[in-house]
């Protein structure tokens, strides 16, 4: 087995377990809601249209957006519950994923179950009344048994959809087979992406076949097929879920990471150090920028690395730039005062937004600073990552220099560099600690007006771990210990095309290169 496949294989019990637990829970919940609703819809034409239209509407929302929407919704709900009862609940991870997937699974089941019940021969239905059945007896002894093969077909469709869509729960902090896909996309580890796709597809196929067994059991009225298929499903679910329940019980620290290589490496670096103290550590990776901070403040993460400028602009909503030291000092007091979040300190390097161009192109245009860039902008295309153009930093820099680009395009960070070297973008919003700046010999433009705030990488600790000496003792040596050259080379070792390292391997190499 190749090392890349072996690495992916080792993660399978955890990823698959969560994926199965999540999909199965969503499906069971979906059936529990859809069936009674379908029965009601089949009874009342007035209810039928709104119910089916609502389920259809849900289906038109992109599944990733549906998952993302549940996070702020639950966060608000959690705050409300906390203010009423004193106990909040986690708005991150399992719950939003479960609710979104449940909603998502309902349309095929509602449609088929309603059609199945309505499709029962009216003569048979009248006969059920005629022999003296109550409405409930008619439903359970005649209508549902006759509609069951059709209902099961809907359950099969819903199961396949749910298993596929569950890969999208990774960005809201729920471990799933999607972790292979999202992490692989960021680090250009295509083996990981393919492994995730294959695992999810195989799971969907197996579940579909087992449900198919149950379905043919219903249509052939063969109880052995029904119970055999159902038993195989239950056993498979339990076996898949066992490692997760096991691991989860022992996890004590939760280390978070956003969705790019540097974050994975730093999360591994911190996790390694915590594990060396004997603690159990679980990781929540691929979090969105705003999701990560709120999760930390809510105590769902214990520690992660963020960047001073990001926190300054997005969390504190500040548009000024008083300088690197003042920003760091301001953050330390403000975050503590406002959210109880501890800024342990800067790791020692910046990962700033930096406009970068291919050196040959910059020289040809005579561009060395953002002021030059503003002049040349009308004939240039700007490539950015997915969030930069909606961030306050972009507004600040745009206000300061007045850019009018010919076009603006957004990319996954990985593809942003590809677009620059391929000529699809002339200038990109790069990251100053990115190894690819040196590797691709890019020119970083200067910022004479100081419009871009500083981006010191800082370790943030959640309020509930504020007094945790073991955690703080394990992580404090990292403060000031990572210089930008070491971080760039660690990032590049993960991002490059040849001899790629996994984030964990890169973290171990970085540990040796600490100052």
């Amino acid at each position, binding site marked *: 087995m190749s090392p890349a496949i072996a690495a992916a294989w080792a993660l399978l019990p955890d990823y698959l377990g969560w994926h199965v637990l999540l999909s199965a829970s969503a499906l069971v919940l979906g059936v529990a809601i859809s069936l009674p609703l379908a029965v009601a819809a089949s009874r009342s034409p007035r209810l039928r249209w709104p119910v089916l239209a609502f389920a259809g509407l849900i289906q038109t929302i992109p599944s990733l957006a549906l998952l993302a929407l549940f996070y702020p919704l639950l966060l608000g709900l959690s705050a409300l519950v906390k203010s009423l009862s004193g106990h909040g609940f986690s708005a991150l991870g399992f719950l939003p994923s479960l609710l979104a997937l449940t909603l998502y699974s309902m349309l095929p089941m509602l449609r088929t179950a309603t059609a199945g019940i309505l499709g029962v*021969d009216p*003569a*048979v239905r*009248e*006969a*059920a*009344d*005629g*022999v*003296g*059945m*109550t409405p409930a*007896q008619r439903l359970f002894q*005649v209508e549902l*048994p*006759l509609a069951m093969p059709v209902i099961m077909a809907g359950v099969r469709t819903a199961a396949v959809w749910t298993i596929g869509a569950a890969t999208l729960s990774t960005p809201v902090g729920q471990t799933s087979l999607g972790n292979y896909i999202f992490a692989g996309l960021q680090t250009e580890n295509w083996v990981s992406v393919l492994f995730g796709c294959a695992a999810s597809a195989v799971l969907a196929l197996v579940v579909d076949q087992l449900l198919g067994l149950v379905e043919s059991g219903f249509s052939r*009225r063969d109880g052995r097929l029904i119970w055999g298929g159902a038993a195989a499903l239950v056993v498979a679910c339990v076996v898949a879920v066992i490692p997760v329940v096991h691991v989860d019980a022992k996890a004590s620290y939760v280390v978070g990471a956003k969705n790019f290589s540097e974050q994975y490496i730093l999360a591994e670096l911190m996790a390694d150090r915590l594990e060396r103290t004997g603690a159990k550590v679980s990781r929540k990776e691929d979090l969105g920028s705003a999701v990560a901070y709120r999760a930390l403040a809510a105590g769902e993460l214990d520690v992660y690395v963020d960047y001073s400028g990001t926190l300054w602009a997005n969390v504190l909503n500040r548009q000024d730039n008083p300088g690197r030291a003042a920003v760091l000092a301001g953050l330390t007091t403000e975050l503590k005062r406002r959210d109880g979040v501890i800024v342990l300190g800067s790791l020692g390097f910046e990962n700033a937004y930096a406009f970068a161009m291919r050196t040959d192109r910059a020289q040809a245009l005579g561009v060395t600073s953002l002021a030059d860039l503003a002049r040349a902008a009308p004939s240039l295309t700007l490539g950015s990552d997915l969030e930069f153009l909606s961030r306050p930093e972009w507004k600040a820099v745009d206000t300061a220099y007045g850019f009018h680009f010919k076009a603006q395009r957004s990319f996954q960070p990985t593809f942003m560099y590809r677009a620059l070297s391929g000529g699809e973008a002339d200038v990109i919003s790069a990251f100053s600690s990115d190894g690819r700046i040196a590797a691709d010999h890019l020119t970083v433009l200067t910022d004479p007006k100081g419009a871009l705030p500083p981006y010191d990488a800082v370790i943030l600790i959640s309020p509930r771990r504020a007094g945790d000496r073991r955690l703080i003792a394990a992580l404090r040596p990292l403060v000031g210990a990572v210089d930008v050259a070491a971080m760039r080379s660690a990032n590049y070792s993960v991002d490059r095309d040849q001899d790629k390292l996994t984030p964990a391997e890169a973290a171990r190499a970085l540990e040796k290169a600490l100052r």
Partner: protein
Amino acid sequence: MGAAKIELLEVRKTYGGHVALGGVTLSIAAGTFVALVGASGSGKTTLLKAINGLAVLDAGQVRIDGEDAAGVAPHILRRRIGYVFQEVGLFPHLTVAENIAITPKLLGWDPARIAARVDALLDLIALPREVAGRAPAALSGGQRQRVGVARALAAEPAVMLMDEPFGALDPITRDALGTDVRALHERLGLTTVMVTHDMAEAVLLADRILVIDDGVILADGPPQILAASADPKVRALMDAPRRQAVRLAERLGLGA
């Protein structure tokens, strides 16, 4: 068992503006075999369904053996009344035996009694016992309707309602099954009400014929009295089988 008297008092039923029953008053003596005849849409099926509550009345009262049917929950009432549908309506997911056993099971009979009853009914409707385990789909049309009759009789009802029970059958099966049903009516002492559009069938099987027209009873009496009716509509109906019989005799060379 033992036959029951059926009474209808000023029974009215409207379906979305169309008057199906326009105030029908009627008394059927215990043990009578009544045929309801009339054109399609005349209200004869609605009259049948009014008796066991499958049609909910707008006004009026139905009494079975003197007891107001409205005072009994509909499903309880129907368990006491056998009903044979034109489309048969056997439950396709149940075996022949399970179909026959359905009402006794709803009534909570013990399994041994149900099994004995199913066997007895298969004998009664002249079906071999080995069909008991088969699915309804594996039977012929005539066999299916025999099972339908057995299912209606399973809980030993005093009243039997039949809605064009032989409409979809071939003439030979139809004739045989009609004769068998009349024999069962005698043997079990039932009060039977049968909807039919076949006048010959009505004349051959029934003690009393009700001609329904536009939701009201146009004529009522034994076949031979109705045959002498002065009403042109009734005469037209009653003459049909007579004309058929004459033409048949002529064509087959049996003429007098």
